[in-house]
Every structure is written in structure tokens, then in C-alpha cells.
């Protein structure tokens, strides 16, 4: 068994034990934190497809996170007030059903990603980073100045949406749901990475010329990667909104894009469990450091800096490499 695999298994055990313990000891907030971790990790898994497998540094994944969130917010708020979204040419009504919301959230994110991706892929390198950032800012300012759904104040949904057969308001059940989705996404990621599509994507990252030479357009492969990546991040956005029962334009902000990117880099770019490790550490630090000092951002900054400078390849990468050297 490879060292990385051992690390992944250890991580899974820890991330399953913590909520189990919290459940036994009746500590609902720890469950909420685990849920938050799983959702952020899911967003990271999405980005990891574009970033890790495709080498496409998107600084605008908050667009999809926010779209997922607003899909949930808009549908649920219409369902709450029994006012249809649209009456002509055909009737669209709101819904409080999670599976439908998820479906629409992923579809909307994928569609927007197709458009943004098609335009952004004309550029590369730093220009790609910056054009995706520009799209993020457009959505951010649009959400702030569009008054219909709360503008800067955002939208509150008083009751979490429903999932058939589950009581989603119960922290444990909602957590299990997000863990399950994260598990499916991880399984999907590992299948994708080893599929012929994944290999082509990897090749397009390393030497676009050769891929072109065998008759595949790198553009097509990369665009497809962005679309899948966005769909998963969009799903995470819908879940995140449901966790907080609230959406706001902050979900679209460049800081959100930056944070999703941080989960991936912190954990290990391209590593299967990278985003999971990154999100877990981030959520842990946020809550651990917040109580230590009013100026806890300094410590967070120092830790992040330490990871970049001394732990190349992120947490998972560093642990796996150190194992290789020893073994």
C-alpha cells in the first residue's frame, strides 16, 4: 500500500471518529463543524479537477459556489412564499426539495462554466488566473446591486430544505448527507483521474502540443474539465447555503475563491484527499485560533506561510514524500 494511501485512510478514520464521538457526547456544534468541513472539501474537490488535474488555475470558483448557493436561496424563498419564479411562457415554481435543488444548482453552474470557460480558455497562465477573477468580480457586484434577492443583505431561508426520508434539521443526518456526497465526489475524482479523459487532461497540461498532434484539441478537454469542476463546486455551494440557511454575495467574493484555492494548495494540489486535508485543517485552525487572540489572523497567516515555504506539495504531498524518502 502506498504511503499516500495510508495517509488517506488515516484521514478518513479521523474524520469519521470525530463526528461519531461528538454524536455520542451530544455535541451538535462539532457535527456542524464537520459538515462545514465536508462541504468546503467538496468545493475543493471540484476545483481540484480544474486545478490539480488540468493545471487550470481558476481564481473565480466562487462564481460557481455562489451560483449553487443562490440557486438554493432563490428556489427555496419562492417555495416559502408560494410565489412562482416565472409564470410565462411556462410556470416555474420554487422548491424545498434538496435533490431538485442540487440538480438545478449543478446544471446552472455547469452552464455558466461552459460560457466562462470558453472565453477564459482563450488565455493562459497568469491571464487565465486574472480573467477568471474578473468574472468572479462581475458576479459579486451583480449580486450586491441586484435588489430582487436581498442585495448585500443576502437571503435568509428559515427552515433547511428537505431530503426524502431524512430530517435535515438534525445535525447528524445533514452531516451524513454531506459526507456521503463528498464520498461520491472523491470516488468520482479518482475514477476521472485514471480514466482516459483524465490522462488526456493531464497530458494537455504537460504538453499541449503532443495532445494536439494526436488529434485531440486541448481546448475541448480543458473546457469539459472546467464544466465538471464547476458543477461539483456548485453543488457544494447549494449545500453550504443550506447549512447556514442563508446566502449572501460574500459567496461570490474573491476571498471565497481564494479560500477554496487555499484548501486545495494546503492539502496538496492534484492529490485525491488534498482538498479534504486542507479544508479540515482550515476549519480546525479557524476555530482553534479564533479564541486565542483578537489578532489570530497573524497566526493563520504565519501557518499558511510555513506550509508554502517548508511543506511543498501540501500536507498530503509532504507526508507522502517524507515516507518515500524513509522507505
Amino acid at each position, binding site marked *: 500500500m502506498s504511503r499516500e494511501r495510508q495517509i488517506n485512510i488515516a484521514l478518513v478514520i479521523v474524520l469519521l*471518529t*470525530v463526528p461519531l*464521538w*461528538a454524536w455520542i*457526547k*451530544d*455535541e*451538535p*456544534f*462539532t457535527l*456542524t*463543524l464537520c459538515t*462545514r468541513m465536508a462541504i468546503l472539501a467538496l468545493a475543493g474537490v471540484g476545483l481540484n479537477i480544474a486545478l490539480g488535474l488540468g493545471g487550470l488555475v481558476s481564481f473565480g470558483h466562487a462564481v460557481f459556489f455562489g451560483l449553487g448557493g443562490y440557486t438554493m436561496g432563490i428556489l427555496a424563498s419562492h417555495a416559502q412564499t408560494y410565489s412562482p419564479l416565472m409564470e410565462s411562457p411556462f410556470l416555474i415554481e420554487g422548491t424545498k426539495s434538496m435533490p431538485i435543488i442540487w440538480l438545478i444548482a449543478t446544471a446552472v453552474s455547469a452552464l455558466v462554466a461552459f460560457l466562462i470557460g470558453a472565453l477564459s480558455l482563450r488565455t493562459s497562465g497568469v491571464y487565465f488566473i486574472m480573467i477568471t477573477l474578473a468574472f468572479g468580480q462581475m458576479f459579486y457586484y451583480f449580486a*450586491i*446591486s441586484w*435588489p430582487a434577492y*436581498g*442585495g*448585500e*443583505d*443576502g437571503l*435568509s431561508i*428559515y427552515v433547511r430544505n428537505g431530503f426524502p426520508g431524512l430530517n435535515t434539521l438534525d*445535525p447528524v443526518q445533514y452531516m451524513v448527507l454531506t459526507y456521503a456526497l463528498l464520498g461520491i465526489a472523491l470516488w468520482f475524482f479518482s475514477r476521472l483521474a485514471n480514466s482516459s479523459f483524465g490522462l488526456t487532461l493531464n497530458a494537455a497540461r504537460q504538453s499541449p502540443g503532443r495532445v494536439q498532434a494526436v488529434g485531440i484539441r486541448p481546448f475541448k478537454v480543458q473546457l469539459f474539465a472546467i464544466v465538471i469542476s464547476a458543477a461539483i463546486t456548485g453543488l457544494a455551494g447549494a449545500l*453550504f447555503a443550506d447549512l*447556514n*440557511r*442563508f446566502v*449572501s454575495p*460574500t*459567496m461570490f467574493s474573491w476571498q471565497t475563491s481564494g479560500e477554496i484555492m487555499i484548501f486545495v494548495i494546503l492539502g496538496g494540489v492534484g492529490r485525491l484527499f488534498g482538498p479534504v486535508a486542507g479544508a479540515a485543517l482550515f476549519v480546525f485552525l479557524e*476555530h*482553534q485560533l*479564533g*479564541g*486565542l*487572540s*483578537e*489578532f*489570530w*489572523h497573524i497566526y493563520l497567516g504565519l501557518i499558511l506561510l510555513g506550509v508554502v515555504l517548508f511543506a511543498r506539495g501540501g500536507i498530503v504531498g509532504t507526508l507522502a514524500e517524507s515516507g518515500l524518502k524513509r522507505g
Partner: protein
Amino acid sequence: MKFSKLTFTAALALALSATNASADLKVGMITTLSGGGAGLGIDVRDGFMLAVEQSGVEGLSVVIEDDQRKPDVAVQLADKLIQSEKVDVLTGIIWSNLAMAVVPSTTAQGKFYLSPNAGPAALAGKGCHANYFNVAWQNDGLHEAAGEYANKAGYSNSFIMAPNYPAGVDALTGYKRMFNGEPAGELFTKIGQNDYAAEIAQIRASDADSVFFFLPGGMGISFLKQYANSGLDLPLIGPAFSFDQGILQAVGEAAVGVKNTSQWNKDIENPANMAFVKSFKEKYDRLPSLYASQGFDTANLLLSAMATADVNDQDAFRTALEAADFESVRGEFAFASNHHPIQNIYVREVIKEGDVFTNKIIETALIAHSDVYAADCSF
């Protein structure tokens, strides 16, 4: 932060904190303590804790958390305080958008929320709740007073502007509700905007006789400094948020003489206020701000209710809060039917006292004022 307590240390330590039953009443304070808007949260916290300390009450514990001015963090902290710290009362939020994110779910979970600052219209009317009390103002209040003052001063076409977000819309609505004249121009600016050259150009191009603006915090500082150098000399009116103790020193001479509206000032003459200003200065070595006074009043309201009722008897505790039987530093204070204040709102003028820029009350704009949304509210 000696009052702050950290519960989430590690999964293993969680078992210990679950059985904390000695406290009679536990308050969770979620406020902004880091980042650009921290000054306001720190003032609310300091005012609140000053009152708690002065009371010397046993059995009141306060857990303080930093929301970083992020709504999703605030929501999550509210979950934490309710689920894990098992607080009875939440308070502390500064910004309307964070309040909109936290208050509805807090009251839905059967907890009390006392607002020391934000008062969005949505929570005063149809969205009101029996367990939500606002100890500061409904957002429109100070702007309505500004409109009333403009009438008295004889202005008939003010140029009005505010940031493009719900509290900004509330501001302009509030001003226009009282203002008898016709606005010469109406502008929504960007949130966090710091360059007002374009707006000043548009004011110049209009035929306004006065300017009303609501630009809280850094935005107001920037506007005032730029306005002072623009060659324009139309009179300015605004709510207290751009003229507060914390930021006046940063504006400097540019603010002197400007009229602004507030429900509190340090020169309101009543024993509670004089004692508050003195003890705040002694303890923290700075003059208290509007926000500090609101934090102080919030704590005293809570303490007054605690003295007569047990928080576990929700109906009795609610009645005790409704009575508002405490010495407010702003003088007379009562709750309207929607649990928002009935209070006087004054006009202040910025003056220089020695080296320090501060405010002086020059007249009363509105007497025993309450908001228009109370009619829509039924519990």
C-alpha cells in the same frame, strides 16, 4: 480577551464542557473584532462589559466571538453559541446584513436576541419576533430625524446619497419620509467606495441647497475630506455614523460644523450618562462612542430583566425586557409594540474641544419617536 472562552479545542475535550450548569444566564456576543470594521464591535463590547462589571451581578456569564464581518461566520458562531455553549441570549451584531442572517434563526430556536446596533426594516415590520429586541434604533430613525431637521433649517432640495445596499435604501427612504422638499438628486454609491470625485461632480452639477449623506465608517471619512476640498460649500447633514467619536479624529477639521443626528451624545445631562462617560473614560482611556453607549444600554436592559425574571420562564423574562426598567444613558427610553425603541433623536454639531473633535447637541429633532413599521408587526 479574558471573557472569551474557547470550547472547541479538540474533539476529545468536548465532553467536559457539556455540563456547565452553574451560570444563571449566559449571553453570547457575536461582534466584529477583527478587520476593517473592528472599531465598532470593540466599542459595543467594551460598553457592554463595562455595565456587566459595574453591576457585579453573580451568575451572568458572557461568551464573546468575532464574526470578522462575514455573514456565514456569524451564522456559524450563532449555531455554536446556541448548540454548544447553550446560551440564553444573543447580542452584539453590528451590521444589518449579519443581523438578517442571524436573528431569524436565533429567535426561531427560542432564544432572545438584543440588538445593540443594527435595525433593518425587515425585522421591525412583518419579520418582527417577540424575542427580538432592538436597543439602538430602527435603521430609518436617524435619517428621519435628519429629514425633519432639514425642514426646520429651510432646505428644500437636498442632494441625497447612500451606499447601494438595503441599509442605504432604508436611509434614503427614511430621509424622504420626513423631508418636505424635493431631492435635487439621488445617488447610490458602491459599498466600500473611497473616491467620491464623481459624486461631488454630480452634486456640483445639480442645483441642490444641501447634501444629505449616509456613508458609515471609512466611506464617510473619505467623502468628508474630499468634499472639504472640492470648493463646494453646501451644508451637509447626516446620521451620527459618519461623525462618531471613533472616526471624527480621522476626519479632522473637515467635519467641524457639520450637523448630524443621533439618539445619544456624551453631553446629555442625566446621572446615568455622566457616570457612564466618566467611567468609560477611566477604564478605556478614550471617549465613549455612540456604539459604546448602545452596548452599555443593552447590558443594562438585560441586567434589569435578569433582576426580576428567570430567563427560563420566557414569558416572564420577555415582559421584564418589555418594561425596559433601566436608566438609559440617552434619557427616556421605552419599547414600541414591535420591540424597537421610542426615543428622542437629537441634532448634534461637530466641534473641537481642546485637541479633540467631538459633538455637541444643538436641538431635538424628533421627540419620543418610533418607527413606521410597528403597524405591520404582530407576534
